[in-house]
Every structure is written in C-alpha cells, then in structure tokens.
C-alpha cells in the first residue's frame, strides 16, 4: 500500500487495520505542509475525503466537514471560528477532523468543542469509542488516537447553548494563527462556559470563571470585571514568536468579557 482512497467507512477502517501506522489525509492543509517541508515522509496514506459518512453534518459533525461548510452554520460560534481559519482556499480544504488530528493548541475549532463538552467518536476495525474533548486532547499536538483508529465525528450534546460567541486575536484578519481565542456559551438558565485556545498546552476551560458567572442571572459591571479577572487568572499561556504570555493572559480576559456581554 502507498495510498488508499476508500469511498466508504469500512474501506477506510480496513486500510487502517492492515497498516496501523498509515497517515490519514483529509484536507491536507496541515499534513501537506509537513510533507512539503520534509518533516514527514509517510509511506502509507489513507485519504479519507471520499468517505461520505465522514462528511455528514446532521446532529453530529463528520470529521471531513470543511471549514467552508461550517462557516454556513448551524452552530453560531463554530461558524464564527470557521470564518477565521486561514483563507477561502484553506477553508475549502481544511476539516474539523484535521483540527482534532493535529491537536494544535491554536486549533480554531477546538474552543467551541470544549465549551460544548463535545465528544470525539473514534472508529477502528475492532471498536467504536467516544472520548470527551479533554480526554482526546492530551497535550500540544498530542491526542489519544490509537494506531489503526480514525477520527469519525464530533458528537455534540443534546442541549446546545442558545447563546454562543467566538473571538480570536491575531495580527491581521486573514491567514493568521491566533495569539489567543475564546468561546463563551451561555444557556438560558445562566449556566456559562468559557473555553480558551492558544493559552495553554491544550484548549482549556476556566471553571472558576464559569462557576462565578453562572450564578449571576444578570451580571453587572462588578461581576463582568470579576469574570474577566478570573479568565485571565485561569489561563496558562507561554511566550513564543506569536505573542507574550502577559499579552495572552490579558487578551483572554478582555475577549472573554466582550463575548459574555454579547451573550447576555
């Protein structure tokens, strides 16, 4: 086997079963960069974009659903996040499954998945299992995918928060990897979730800020300020070529507060 281009799920799982070390190719926007730069030399590739089941967007999000499709909805904050991914060319090819496979702390779709407590469904020839987002994302560019396993879909909970907002800070609008990004989701009863990306080894939730603001039915200035402070305090950023830890910490709080205000 060099490359296999299955058209159905069983074909993809059979291919991965016979070559568990095979590299899975979806939109190629991450993998091809690594190949072009000589960082990866896969001998076996399973190209999954023809697998119809992986392109379904109906209650769950198939791994091969592109950013271009997610931009159109139905999930507001995920659509907002999708629109910030790369460029039209990247969004036409890149997929949410690729975001999970790459598991970058800067994955634009991941804060939404974290805020909704999404589960990731993994299939192999032997079994199907679901991991919650934080069981799946285990570290920077690390996930819990086992050899022979395929990211099948994102499974969202039945209860989707009606108010949800995503925001991202970077040096320009297009073609930018975030310095920091935030997703805030609020249920009608006030329960609030806040997930932050590019501010720790993996996407993270700031539970202290969530607990505080969830108890506020109509937060005033002091509650909003406290929410912002708790988000800044609760992130764990580093300084790198894209931004500093101090800036990321500050921006995470500011963006989280703004998004929360839009949710109220």
């Amino acid at each position, binding site marked *: 086997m060099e490359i296999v281009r299955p058209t159905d799920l069983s074909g993809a799982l059979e291919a991965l079963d016979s070559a568990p070390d095979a590299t899975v*190719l979806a939109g*190629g*926007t991450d993998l*091809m960069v690594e190949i072009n730069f000589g960082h990866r030399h896969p001998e076996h590739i399973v190209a999954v*974009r023809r697998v119809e089941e992986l392109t379904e967007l109906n209650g769950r999000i198939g791994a091969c659903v592109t950013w271009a499709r997610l931009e159109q909805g139905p999930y507001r904050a995920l659509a907002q996040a999708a629109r910030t991914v790369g*460029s*039209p060319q*990247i969004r036409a*090819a890149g997929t949410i499954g690729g975001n999970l496979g790459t598991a970058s702390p800067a994955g634009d779709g991941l804060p939404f998945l974290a805020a909704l407590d999404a589960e990731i469904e993994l299939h192999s020839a032997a079994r199907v299992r679901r991991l919650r987002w934080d069981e799946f994302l285990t570290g920077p560019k690390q996930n819990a995918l086992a050899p022979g396993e395929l990211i099948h879909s994102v499974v969202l909970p039945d209860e989707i928060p009606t108010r949800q907002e995503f925001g991202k800070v970077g040096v320009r609008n297009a*073609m930018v990897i975030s310095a920091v990004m935030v997703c805030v989701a609020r249920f009608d009863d006030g329960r609030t979730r806040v997930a932050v990306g590019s501010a720790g080894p993996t996407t993270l939730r700031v539970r202290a800020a969530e607990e505080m603001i969830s108890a506020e039915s109509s937060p005033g200035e002091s509650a909003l300020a406290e929410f912002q402070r708790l988000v800044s305090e609760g992130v764990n950023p580093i300084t790198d070529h894209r931004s500093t830890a101090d800036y990321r910490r500050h921006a995470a709080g500011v963006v989280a507060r703004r998004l929360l205000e839009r949710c109220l």
Partner: protein
Amino acid sequence: MSDVDFTLNGETRSVSVGTTQSLLSLLRDELELPGSKNACEQGECGSCTVLMDGAAVCACLVLAADADGSDITTVEGMASGDVLHAVQDALVAGGGVQCGFCTPGFVVAAAHLFESEPSPDRDQIREALSGNICRCTGYGAILRSLEDLAQR
C-alpha cells in the same frame, strides 16, 4: 508511485505520481503547466491557487495522488483560445499586475468569485482574495480592476 486519473483543463489525464508529491509539483514539474506558482508551499500565499471540483484550493496542499477523479482547472485553463477570461482582461485593462508572480493565483481566485457572484462589492472581492498575497501592487490596482469588472 500511484496511478491517478483526473480532468485537467478539460482534458482527461492519466499519470503516475509519487506518494508524497503535491499537485503543484505534478502540474509544474511534469505536466508542463508552470502557470501555478510555487512560493510558500504552505498555503499562505495563494500563488498556486487552482480550481478543484469547483473550489479554489492551494495546489501545494493537495496530494497529487488524492486528486484522483477530480476536475482541475489551472490558470492555463482560464482563457478560451486567444480570448482572455474576463478577470484576466480586467487585470490587463486596469494595470492590476506588477511583477506578475502572484497574478495566476489572483486570476483563479477572482474567477472563482465571479462565477458565483457576478457583481461582487469591494468587501466580497477583498474577502475572496484574502488568501492571495501580492508584494508589489499594494492590492489597489488589483481591487480597482476587479471592481471595474463587477460594474460592467
């Protein structure tokens, strides 16, 4: 090596490609179509933009072997014989070219926009070209050329 069949600028092609070869490398190095430019090899610059099954994508990010079965149009496929595509014509008329290196990518991205939206406004044009980088025109002449086309 892997055998690939696809449609390229309206013609059926069957070629043998390397496992990790990009579509861009296949087009430029083997199929003698150097119009799609090779610059960043990471999807940042848009100079290698082609249409693949109706979507504008970066050819550097397409695995050639995964292009099997698809319908690909490169900048070489934009004109009909000696008659330029309307976007090419507009860029010539409006001076929307300086060194020309990025131009093929802009042509394909803009042609893709005008296919779905014949009269785009400035924001739609800017959005559609946001994945294409030009280092010499400052974009002004490109945008004006395409705005002129949108108003025709």
